[in-house]
C-alpha cells in the first residue's frame, strides 16, 4: 500500500463498468485525478458523462472496476465497507442535489448526526453554532418537510460543515433550487469552504458555480476531456 500524502484525493486509471440489459456499460474509462488539500475542483459534463459515478468512487461510496483511489491518504481498495464509512466519519462531508436530510430528525438533529457518529461530546452546541452560521438559528426544531428547499439545503450545508471535514463532496447542490436561492446557497457553500479550509469536489451543471472553483475537470462519456 502506498499513500498519497499531501493530496486529499487521488485517482489512478479509474474505470467503472456495470452490467446492463444490452451488455456491459462503461461509466468511467481510465480517469486520472489529483486534488491537493484545500483545493476546490469542479467536475462538469453533460448528463450521463459519469460525474456522479466519479464522485461516488472518490468518496468511497463504491469501488472502481479497475484503478485505485486514495482518500485522505488511504487506499480505499484496502478498506471494507465499514472501514470506508469509518474513514468518512467526521472527515468527509456531503451536500446532495436532493438534500438527503433524514425526515424523522429535526434540522438540529440532522446537523448533530455526523458529529455524534464521529464521537463528539458537544454535538448540540456545535450544531446550534453552525445552524446560526447558515442563518437558521430559529429553525433548529423544524423537521425537513417544514422547511423550504433553500432552507433544507442550508441545513445540509450546516450538516456537512459541522464536524469540520477535510473534504467536502457536493453533487449538484443548487440543482433543485431556483436561481436566486441557488445563488445564495452557492455563496454560502464557498464562504464556508473558505472558512473551514476544506478540500471541495463539486459536481455541477452550473457553469457559474463551476467557475468559482480553482480547477475544472470536464467529463464526457466517462473520459476526461480537458
Amino acid at each position, binding site marked *: 500500500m502506498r499513500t498519497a500524502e499531501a493530496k486529499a484525493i487521488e485517482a489512478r486509471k479509474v474505470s467503472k463498468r456495470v452490467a446492463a440489459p444490452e451488455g456491459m456499460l462503461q461509466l468511467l474509462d481510465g480517469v486520472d485525478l489529483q486534488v491537493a488539500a484545500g483545493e476546490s475542483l469542479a467536475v462538469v459534463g453533460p448528463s450521463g458523462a459519469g460525474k456522479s459515478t466519479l464522485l*461516488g468512487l472518490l468518496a468511497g461510496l463504491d469501488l472502481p472496476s479497475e484503478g485505485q483511489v486514495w482518500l485522505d491518504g488511504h487506499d480505499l481498495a484496502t478498506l471494507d*465497507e*465499514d472501514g470506508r464509512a469509518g474513514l468518512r466519519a467526521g472527515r468527509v462531508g456531503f451536500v446532495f442535489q436532493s438534500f438527503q436530510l433524514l*425526515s424523522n430528525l429535526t434540522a438540529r438533529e440532522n446537523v448533530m448526526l455526523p458529529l455524534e457518529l464521529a464521537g463528539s461530546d458537544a454535538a448540540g452546541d456545535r450544531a446550534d453554532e453552525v445552524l446560526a452560521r447558515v442563518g437558521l438559528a430559529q429553525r433548529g426544531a423544524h423537521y425537513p418537510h417544514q422547511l423550504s428547499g433553500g432552507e433544507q439545503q442550508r441545513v445540509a450545508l450546516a450538516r456537512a460543515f459541522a464536524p469540520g471535514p477535510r473534504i467536502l463532496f457536493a453533487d449538484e447542490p443548487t440543482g433543485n433550487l431556483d436561481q436566486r436561492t441557488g445563488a445564495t446557497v452557492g455563496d454560502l457553500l464557498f464562504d464556508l469552504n473558505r472558512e473551514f479550509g476544506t478540500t471541495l469536489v463539486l459536481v455541477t451543471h452550473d457553469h457559474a458555480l463551476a467557475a468559482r472553483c480553482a480547477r475544472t475537470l470536464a467529463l464526457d462519456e466517462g473520459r476526461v476531456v480537458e
Partner: protein
Amino acid sequence: MNAALRFAWRALLRDLRAGELHVLALALAIAAGAVSTVGLFTDRVERALAGQAAEVLAADLLVESSRETPAEWRNEATRRGLESARTVSLRSVAVVGERTQLVELKAADSGYPLRGRLRSAPAPDGDERVETGLPEPGSVWVDVRLLHLMDLEVGDRIGLGVSELTISRVLTFEPDRGMNVFSIGPRVLIGWQDLAGTGLVLPASRVHHHLLLAGEPTSLAGFTRWLQPRLGVDYEIEGIEQARPELRSALERAGAFLNLAALVSVLLAGVAVAMAAQRHAARQADGSAVLRCLGATRRFVLLAYASELMLLGVLAGLLGCVAGYAGQALIGGLVAGLMGGQLPPPSLAPALVGLGVALATLLGFALPPLLRLGRVSPLRVLRRDLGLPPLPGVAVYMAGGGAMVALMLWLSRDAVLTGWVLAGVLVTLLALTAAAGLLVLALRRLRRRSGLAWRFGLLNLARRARGSVAQLLAFGLALTVLLLLTVVRVDLLDAWRAKIPPGAPNLFLVNVQPDEVGALATRIEALTGDTPALYPMVRGRLVAHNGAPIDANDYPTPRARRLATREFNLSYVDQVPESNRIVAGTWWSEQAPGAVASVEQGLAETLGIGLGDRLRYRVAEREFEVTVTSLREVAWDSFRVNFFVLLPPEVLEGFPATHITSFHLPAAARAGLGDLVRSFPSVTVIDVDALLGHVRRIVDRVTLAIEFVFGFTLLAGVAVLFAAIHATLDQRRYEASLLRTLGARRSGLLRALAVEFLLLGALAGLLGALAASGIGWLLAREVFDLPWQGGGLLWLFGPLAGMAVVGLAGLAGTWRVAGQPPLAVLRRG
C-alpha cells in the same frame, strides 16, 4: 451505542408523530393485546372452571384411603393455610321395623363441602334450599329414593348400626355425588359427631376415608409435594384432573380451543408485523444510505433501526397489555354472571406475557426485513435506482421462525396442536402461493378483453405479479382465518355441543338380574319410546399380565395401582358399541374370535397394556386368559354405558352377570320412575341429570369464553388486511399521481382501484375458503376429535366476504391516494 440509541429514540418519536409506524404499532399492540387478553382471560376462566370442577370433588384435592388419614396431615395442611374437612363413606343397612335397605352412609365433619354447596328440601316435593351446615346431632338427611324404597317420611326414625336417628330433611344435591356413580345406593348423610355412635366403623369394616383440602394452588402444590413421599400404597391423591373423565375431556377440549385462539393470534399479528416492517424498512432505505455516507458503520445502522423497533415494541406491547387488561375485565364481567359468580382476580404474569410476545413477534417477523437496512449501499444517496438488497438468507428466517415456534410451544404447551397449526399454516401458504400465481397468470390473458377501469385494475394486478401474489397471500391468509373463526368455528363448536345431545342418557340402571332384562326393557320402552341396550356386566379381577402376577407395587402411579387391583366390570358384545372407536388392532369378527379382548386406550396406557398382551382374569373362582386384539377410544362424555374391557360373548357367557343400561327420561315422564323402582326393587337407579346439566353448563360457558377470545384473533386478521393494503400504499400513491398528471380522472382512478381490490378480495376469498375447509377438516379430525360436516356455505361466503372486506378496506386505505395533488407526491418520489 449511545449515539445509536439517541438516534433510535428521536426517530421513533418523529415516526410516531408522523404516523409512519402506526400499522406496525397497531399490529404489535394487537399481538400483545390478544395474547394478554387470551392469557388473562383464560387464566381466570380456567381457574373458575377448575373451581367448578372442584365442586365435583367438593374440594380442590382429595386424599382417599381405606384407613383414617393421620392427624399430622391435617395439621400440616392447616399450617400451609389450606382448609380441610373429613368424610367417611361406607355401605350399610338402614333398618325401620322389619324393613331393611342397603344405603350409602356418609359422615362429614364441619367445613364439608369445601367446594360447592349441599342442597336440601323439607319434604320430597318441598322447596330446595342451599345448605351451609350439616345435619344436627341425632338427625340424618336422606336421598328421596330412600323415602320411596322404605315408604318413609321426613320426621321418621331410621336405625343405622346401633343408633337410631331422625330424618330431618331430604338431601337433594351433593356436589361430589357423581364421584362413584356405579356404587351408590340411596345416600344417608350424618354429622361427624354421630358416626362413632353408629358403631359401624370398626377395624375390619370396608370404609372409605376422605381428607378434603382446598386453598391456593401454590399451597396445594406444596402440600402435595410434602405428602407424596408419605402416601405409601394405602393412600391416594385425587385432584381435579382425576375426577370424572367426561369433565376432564370437556376441559381438555376447551384448553385446545383457547390455545388455538392464542396461537393463531400470534401468527396473524406476526404476518401483519412482517408486512409493516417490510414497508418500514423500504422507507428507511434512503436514511440508512445517508447514515452510511456520513460514516455510520453497518453495526450502527442495524443497532439504530433495531433499537427504534424494539422501543416501539415495548411501547406498543405495554399498550397492548393495558388493552388486554381492559378487554379481559370487560368480557370477564360479562361472563362472570354466566359463570355463576365472580371470576378469580386477574394475575400479572399473563399480562407481561403479552409484552414478551410483542417483542418476540418483532424479533421473529420484523428482523429479517430490518437486516436489509444494514446492507443498503451508501451509493444510494447518488443513485436512487439502486433497490433494497435482497432479503437475508434462510438462516435468519429459520432463527426468527424458530423463535416463533418456541413461543407458540410455550403458549400452547401442546406440541401436537402447535405442530398442526404450523403445518396448517405452511401448507396453506404454499397452496395459496401456487394458487395465487396461477390466478395472476390467468388475469394476464383476461385483461385484453375488458373496459378501461377493468383494464387498469387487471393491469395493476398482472403487472405487479409478485406483489399481487404476495397481497393475495396476505389477504387469503387473513380471510382463511376470518372464515375459520366465523364459519368453521361455529361448525366445530356445534359439533362439540352435539357431543352431549339434548337426549343424552340421564338415568343409569345397574344391578339388573338376567331374568329381569326382558321385562325391564319393555317398561323402559313404554316410558321412553326407545328400546334400551342392556349390557351384561361380569365383575372380574385381573390376576396376571403376560403371565406375570399382578402386584400393585409394580405400577408407578396410584391411579394405575388402583385400576390394576380393583374389580373390573367386564362386558361382552358382538359389535363395537356406539361412542366407541377402534384405534389399534381389529375388532373380532362374528366367527369364533377365540379368547380375545378389546381394551380402552386410556386404561391400556395407564397399565402398560399393548396389542398382543395376555390378560388373565379371575371371575367367581374361575380363571381364563385373553389376548388383547384391539384398543378402543371411548367417548366418555357421551354418557352412555361404557366399559374399559370388552370380550366376545363366548368367553364370558355362563359367568354370573348382572345387566346395566342407560337411557334418557324426559322430565315429563319422570313420574313413571317411581313405579319402575317399585317394580324392580333390586335394580339400582342412578340419576345423572344433575351431573349432566353441570357438564352441559360447563360446555356452554366454555363455548362462550371461546367465542369472546376468538374475537381478538379476528382483530389480528383485520390488522393483516390493513398491513397488506398499507404495504403497497407508497407505490399506489406514486402511480396514481402519475396517472393524474397524465389526465386520469379521480373517478376513473377510484373505479380502477375498486376493480383491483374487489378482484383481489374475491380471489383471496376463494383461496381462503379452500384453505379454511382443509384446516377445518384437519382440526376436527386430528385435534378436536369431532365429526366434520364441512361448511358448505364457505364457497359462497368466502369470495363474498373477501370482496366486501378487502374491497372496503382497500378503498378506505387508498381513498386519499386518488385525490392527492400529483406534484406533492411526485416530488417526494
